[in-house]
């Protein structure tokens, strides 16, 4: 580790975490005014957050929207990734191009176009449209995560299972899925996190559903209140917790797998012991 690399990494971490650190500092600052110099330590903003039902409802709504987005995003990403791996050249190019659309089209444009369709069809907007619209934007990410792991699997394992008489479903459940479960979990957390972080799609497709980001955005236009800081820090800690727990879970899983899988191939890849 050279001194220069260390300096670059330190600078990057300082830059990337500066805005977050500032939020945290002001969430403990004993003044309504969010300005330097700091006035002293207080937990008032966290206390007032505990009494702010507006924020709490928003957080619950965000959470309830994010769960189906994570689950559907991971599930559909899994099917798309499996199709992508199995597909011939033509289908693969078509599917990749289709998956790039929600990634490349600006979210504002896609959401407005979707709103136009819903309105022409006389359909209302609400939790269901918000969830589906977020799933569409999440799918390119979840598919890429799962496909990048699927493509490295040894196809001979599944072939062996099929040769020994396993049905396609049993083969998927007992052979393929155990190997890609961490990637599916990662795709799920990606979906949840992108959903929690989204503002743009919500602005158009949420209807009367009010996730936290919309409530914060409406406050943002009027006045900045310090319990907003406390809220942001609370949300950040919770999302960071999701990330850390997923990582810990994966590491434990990997360690367990290494510990109990004695079969090794010439390539050095660890095999799952048949259950």
């Amino acid at each position: 580790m050279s001194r220069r690399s260390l300096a670059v990494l330190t600078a990057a971490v300082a830059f990337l975490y500066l805005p977050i650190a500032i939020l945290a500092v002001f969430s403990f600052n004993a003044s309504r005014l969010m300005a330097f110099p700091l006035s002293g330590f207080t937990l008032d903003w966290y206390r007032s957050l505990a009494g702010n039902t507006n924020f709490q409802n928003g957080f619950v709504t965000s959470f309830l929207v994010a769960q189906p987005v994570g689950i559907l995003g991971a599930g559909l990403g899994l099917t798309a990734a499996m199709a992508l791996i199995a597909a011939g050249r033509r289908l693969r190019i078509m599917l990749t191009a289709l998956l790039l659309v929600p990634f490349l089209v600006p979210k504002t444009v896609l959401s407005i176009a979707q709103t136009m369709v819903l309105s022409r069809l006389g359909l209302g907007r609400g939790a269901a449209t918000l969830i589906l619209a977020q799933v569409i934007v999440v799918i390119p990410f979840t598919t890429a995560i799962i496909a990048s792991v699927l493509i490295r699997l040894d196809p001979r394992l599944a072939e062996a299972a099929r040769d020994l008489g396993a049905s396609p479903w049993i083969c998927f459940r007992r052979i393929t899925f155990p190997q890609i479960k961490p990637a599916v979990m990662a795709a799920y957390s990606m979906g949840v996190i992108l959903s929690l972080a989204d503002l743009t799609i919500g602005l158009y497709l949420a209807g009367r559903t009010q996730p936290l980001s919309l409530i914060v955005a409406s406050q943002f236009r009027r006045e900045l209140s310090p319990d907003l800081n406390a809220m942001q820090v609370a949300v950040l800690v919770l999302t960071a917790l999701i990330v850390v727990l997923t990582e810990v879970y994966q590491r434990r899983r990997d360690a367990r797998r290494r510990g109990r899988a004695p079969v090794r191939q010439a390539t050095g890849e660890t095999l799952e012991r048949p259950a």
Partner: protein
Amino acid sequence: MPDSRQILALPVVLLLLVGAILPLTILVVISFWSVDFDAFELVPGFGLASWREILGNPTYPYLIGKAVLTGGVTTSLTALAGYPLALSLLRLPKRWKSVALVVLLTPLYTGEIVRIYAWRLVLGTDGLVNSLLMGLHLVDAPLKFLLFSPFTTALALFYDELPFMTLALWIALERLDMRLVEAARDLGARPLPAFIRVTLPLTSTGLCAGALAVFALSAGDMQTPNFLGGPSGATALASIDNFFGTAFDWPTASALALTLLLTLIVAAALLAAGILRLGGRPARVAR
């Protein structure tokens, strides 16, 4: 015999056809319609009024050009910062790399509105930077250009997209055989020429992937310029939103959205082609 697993593509294909391709097609159709502003109704038909409005008024080509410029500047800045950062991450001991990945990605998980909001606390008149500068007597009055200016937008977008670019470059560098760079250095190439002639061409696919992601995300961002750009924060996307919502002029909104979309796709394709051409260089040297 075609692989039966191909059928698994069906749910995603259906969802994307209905949820993404159909809406974009509707945009094309509506862009030729007109609006009856007395009845507040859309009138189906085939007219070019909205296209004339968009292409004839210099404001919109200007705003679309600005979107391309925003994407280009953000892409260049993140690439310039992303290479040193990715090269440093590459040199980390192996067991630190997964920690570094979490550290790099966590700022992405903060919502767009949270990041925007935090920048106001850092760059505002009473914010961190101004207070420090005043406290150290480096400036007498708070620097006004820090917040609500093109500088703010550029900085916030750079912050938002840096992790994406770094990740793409890092993955590409992990696959690069570093002995090639060492060989170039041993043969007397100074660090910068070695980077330009060896590292850059051999990581051009990673740079291309990162550049496409950063370009699409930054050129397609409306909230950051809107909340942080101040008077300079006008974007084509905000105009689309305005035509669509406030003005109820869906045909013009559609025509502008399509013009923006086509321009961005062409610009992204040129950018990708330009970067991938970098990859051609080492082959010529080898011959």
